[in-house]
């Protein structure tokens, strides 16, 4: 066989195997799917923990703020109550003083 025949035989069009397309597509799909990463589950847990911590801090802070507001309001009411009783005390003292004075029929 001379060189011309060898070259013509090498370049001759050959029929592709019938399952070539399926095998190529299968290979593409296999390489496109992401490989499972190590530590994916622990990352999700960290996210949930972070969310839980934020919720806990928010609720705790709100509760603390609410308690402080209630205490401040209570202190204000107690101060007003103290003042109200003091004025009541003073008014009753005046009434007592007037009652203890002898009647003055001579006018003022």
């Amino acid at each position, binding site marked *: 066989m001379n060189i011309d025949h060898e070259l013509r035989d090498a370049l001759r069009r050959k029929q592709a195997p019938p399952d070539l397309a399926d095998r190529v597509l299968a290979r593409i799909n296999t390489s496109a799917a992401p490989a499972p990463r190590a530590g994916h589950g622990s990352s999700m847990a960290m996210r949930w923990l972070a969310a839980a911590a934020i919720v806990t801090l928010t609720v705790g802070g709100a509760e603390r703020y609410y308690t402080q507001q209630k205490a401040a309001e209570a202190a204000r009411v107690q101060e007003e109550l*103290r003042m109200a009783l003091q004025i009541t005390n003073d008014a009753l003292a005046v009434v007592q003083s007037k009652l203890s004075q002898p009647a003055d029929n001579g006018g003022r």
Partner: protein
Amino acid sequence: MKTLTIVAFALVIPAAASAQDGRLNLSFLDRLADRATEKQEITITPEMLTSASPFVPGGPKGDAARQVMSELRGIYVRSYEFDDPKAYSMDDVNAVRKQLSAPGWRKVISNEEKGRNGEFELQEIYFFQSDGKMGGIFILNAEPGELQVVNIVGPIDFAKLAALGGVLGIPTNLPGIPR
């Protein structure tokens, strides 16, 4: 001329049942606030008393104070001092006193003095009773240049009120009231 009237507590017969409570409308006095040189206007509602009650210190006095606070239905105080001794008139006072003609109110103490130059003094104490139970008190002290009005709503027990005063740091004796 001074007129003094004391109605013995024993003569205060239980009033007929009334839907009204012992609260008076003190808003008629609001117009005096602008003229006053000193004023204290205190409005303590039942809700305020309820919210403050848990913060009262513990102990027997605290327990007594909490009980009083749970029973009271409100405390309303107006106290004014004026530079002008005629800054307010009897009409201003009467706007509030008119309400005391409602069923349930009984005058127990009254002291009235009128001067020649139109000045007047008036001290009065009224009790409100409903179904034979004390439901409120009204204290009025009107002097030239000075006006104090106190309306306490709810069952009044002066001994308990004194206990409340003790917890809040004011003198525990309430003068003028037999204990």
